[in-house]
């Protein structure tokens, strides 16, 4: 899956779940900066699984949007 598709899906999900603006969400943004804590991340990943039709089992700490994009791209 290409990075842009993944990034756009993440951006869409973050916007659905928080008051963040589209411009606030960049590859280098940390989830913490976006107001997403560890519980939010679990729900965010569930939403992404549905959007991207993949199974995501995270086995490492993902701090930035780029970390998550890379993780999903490597699946």
């Amino acid at each position, binding site marked *: 899956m290409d990075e842009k598709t993944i990034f756009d899906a993440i951006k869409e999900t973050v916007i659905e*779940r*928080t*008051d963040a603006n589209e411009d606030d969400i960049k590859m280098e943004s940390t989830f913490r900066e976006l*107001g997403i804590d560890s*519980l*939010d991340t*679990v*729900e965010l990943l*569930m939403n992404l699984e549905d959007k991207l039709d993949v199974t995501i089992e995270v086995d490492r700490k993902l701090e930035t949007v780029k970390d998550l994009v890379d993780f999903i791209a490597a699946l």
Partner: protein
Amino acid sequence: MENYRRVVVTGMGAISPVGKGVEENWKNLVDGVNGIDKITLFDTSDFKAKLDGEVKDFNPRDYMDKSDVLKSDRYAQFAIAAASEAVGMSGIIGNVDPERLAVYFGTGIGGMATFVKEHNTLIKRGPTRVSPFFVPMMIANMASGMISIRYNAQGPSMPAVTACASGTNAIGEAMRLIRHGYADAVITGGSEAAICECGVAGFINMQALSTADDRNSASLPFDRRRSGFVIAEGGAALILEEYEHAKKRNAKIYAELVGYGSTCDAYHITAPRSDAEGARRAMSQALSEANYDKEDSVYINAHGTGTPLNDKTETLAIKHALGEEEAKKAIISSTKSMTGHMLGAAGALEAIVSIKVLESGIIPPTINLLEHDEECDLDYAPLKAVKRDITLSLSNSLGFGGHNGCLAFRRI
């Protein structure tokens, strides 16, 4: 109760089937506006009961940011809505030590709709799809927890979970916190949002709900035709504050909470004791703490659900608590005739009504009360609001489990 610290009300908030905000609620209750209508929250085709009291056009975004909306049940959203109005009105934040600010907020059930939704997800999609927010959204203490977080209230924080008495018990227990020195102010009240398929089906099968089709002959407290309550939802909040604390900061004081009674029937899971002794004792405790005097002009916001048993038993409790003659002189109304039964939020909204009665000298009516019942033979302010100067205002709440609560307010 001279030896205890005095407790006053310095803020109020309400969201109910008859309005958003205390002023709109009060105006509509005085005008006899009926908040009951068809259930819109789910398809009632297979349900015998088709009416409810819903909070109309509720948008939680008016009170919370998006992220909090997505991780809170509707019951907690109503609690936040009511608490934010009450806190704003009181001006308490910034004027109380956070460690001396408590939250006691009741709910009969908690996040029932969340429970049902996530259980459906479990069945349809398996355990990996149950929301990580399922537990925090559903638990009955989360309204208290979220209010504490929002207002940095670091004192005691707990729910009262005593079914239909939850709001009243939360307020009464909050009063004791202040009286006995454990807090200087408490954000208290109750909220409920249990109008979902499973909740309504359960209440129908208990034979607790009216199955009437006509919205003006469904919630019929003290009327001979009454056949059950109409389920409703909403939230209401009070700011209770220690009297000297409120005076020192020149807060507007709406009333003094002068008495509280709390008892259990210890008799049956849903039916009240036929001799009404549990409810009577709760009322007697509140009256005693309030230094009730036969000269008092008394208003009682009755629990008055419109179930056949409740209304006749409560009538008996009132007679036994006040004495037959004094009971006949008291004026009583059931605002559930207009709101339906907001369960764990009911006692909190009705406490506000009791305070507004003291303040205004206007008694909101029991609407649609047309047919006299010989077992309900007191003055229930039928059909239209009446004017009367009240010196002692009581609010009764009686919950499944046999929980009986009574609050008593006076002007200050």
